């Protein structure tokens, strides 16, 4: 009886969910701070995406493993400790082996702890689902976040610096719109992209 109440997620469903339907940035509107701050270059955005995926996957995994051990009354504190732990691991590893990336991402690495995506998935998914779907959910949400970050960063870096991943693509004839890399540009680009996503969603709805 309880089996039928719980929805069984297939891998395909999970990936579609994380990448499209409930995309952390464009669908759920979570993790905005980093989306605006770190998306000034594709390398930064991509690295941030990988870090979030790493933390999200591991925290989903362990919270799912411990879902019967962590009783509801202490769950928020427990989730925070687990997520903060993995974030610190990422922080230390980056500082040791990729110091320049650690410096450019700066404050936003430890701030992954309060990235709402991770706590939201812990609360709504990993604490209720078995290990395998939770793991896949973490990976797919992380991937959705990474893809969104790369899209935003690509627009900002390409039109704002004329480069992609640090390599100058648009020639001298192109005067980069430096505004796009500034904080102002972050707001405008994200707003524009969200409007675009909303428009695409409406188009799909009309078709159905």
């Amino acid at each position, binding site marked *: 009886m309880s089996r039928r109440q719980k929805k069984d997620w297939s891998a395909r469903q999970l990936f579609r969910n994380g990448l499209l339907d409930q995309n952390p940035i464009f669908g759920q509107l979570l993790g905005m701070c980093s989306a605006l701050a770190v998306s000034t270059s594709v390398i930064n955005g991509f690295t941030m995406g990988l870090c979030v995926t790493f933390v999200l996957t591991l925290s989903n995994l362990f919270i799912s493993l411990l879902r019967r051990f962590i009783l509801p009354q202490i769950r928020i504190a427990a989730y925070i400790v687990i997520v903060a732990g993995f974030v610190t691991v990422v922080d230390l590893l980056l500082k040791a082996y990729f110091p320049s990336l650690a410096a450019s991402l700066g*404050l936003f690495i*430890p*701030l992954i*702890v309060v990235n709402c995506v991770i706590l939201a998935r812990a609360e709504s998914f990993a604490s209720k689902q078995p290990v395998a779907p939770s793991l896949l959910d973490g990976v797919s949400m992380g991937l959705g976040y990474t893809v969104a970050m790369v899209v935003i960063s690509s627009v900002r870096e390409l039109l704002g610096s004329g480069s992609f991943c640090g390599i100058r693509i648009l020639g001298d004839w192109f005067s980069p719109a430096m505004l796009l890399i500034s*904080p102002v540009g972050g707001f405008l680009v994200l707003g524009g992209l969200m409007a675009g996503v909303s428009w695409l969603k409406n188009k799909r709805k009309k078709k159905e």
Partner: protein
Amino acid sequence: MGNLLLLSLGAVLVENFVFVKFLGICPFLGVSQKLNTAVGMGLAVTFTMTISSALTWLLHRFVLVPLELEYLNTVAFILLIASLVQLIEMVLQKFLPSLYASLGIYLPLITTNCAVLGVALLNVQNGYDFVESMVYGFSAGIGFLLAIVLLSLVRERLIFSRIPKPFQGFPSALIAGGLLALAFSGFQGLQLA
């Protein structure tokens, strides 16, 4: 004294936490539809940031540094902030139930406000002393309050405009936020030190 004033002005205007540092964006966008919720959230966040700045500084200076446990910064700070917010919740529920009811779910969400943890970490990164940390925390909160109130004023009027369907809701809030950020970038030239 003058030094503190410069620090304070810097945090509110030149390096506004929302428009320049991108901290506190989620509540900035999520709670700015109406003026009174924006004010309530802004004040609650300022209060939390001031106290958490003080407490995290003390924790860092007297526990983490002597024991050489600085790598536990993030974990310790966020736990402290979560507990502080819980405490504030309980106190409000008991003594100011109307405020507690109007803030609703947004109160526990202060824990996940990047600005609160962000300012605690920045205090450590910038090497501020106890008074400077509290002033910085308070001013950063005021900056957040200013930002969220300004956006709510714009959004309250925005609902009367005819906005193309894809831009309705969040995208229009982001664009409005961007224009506010543009206005604030004028403060960059302010010679403070």
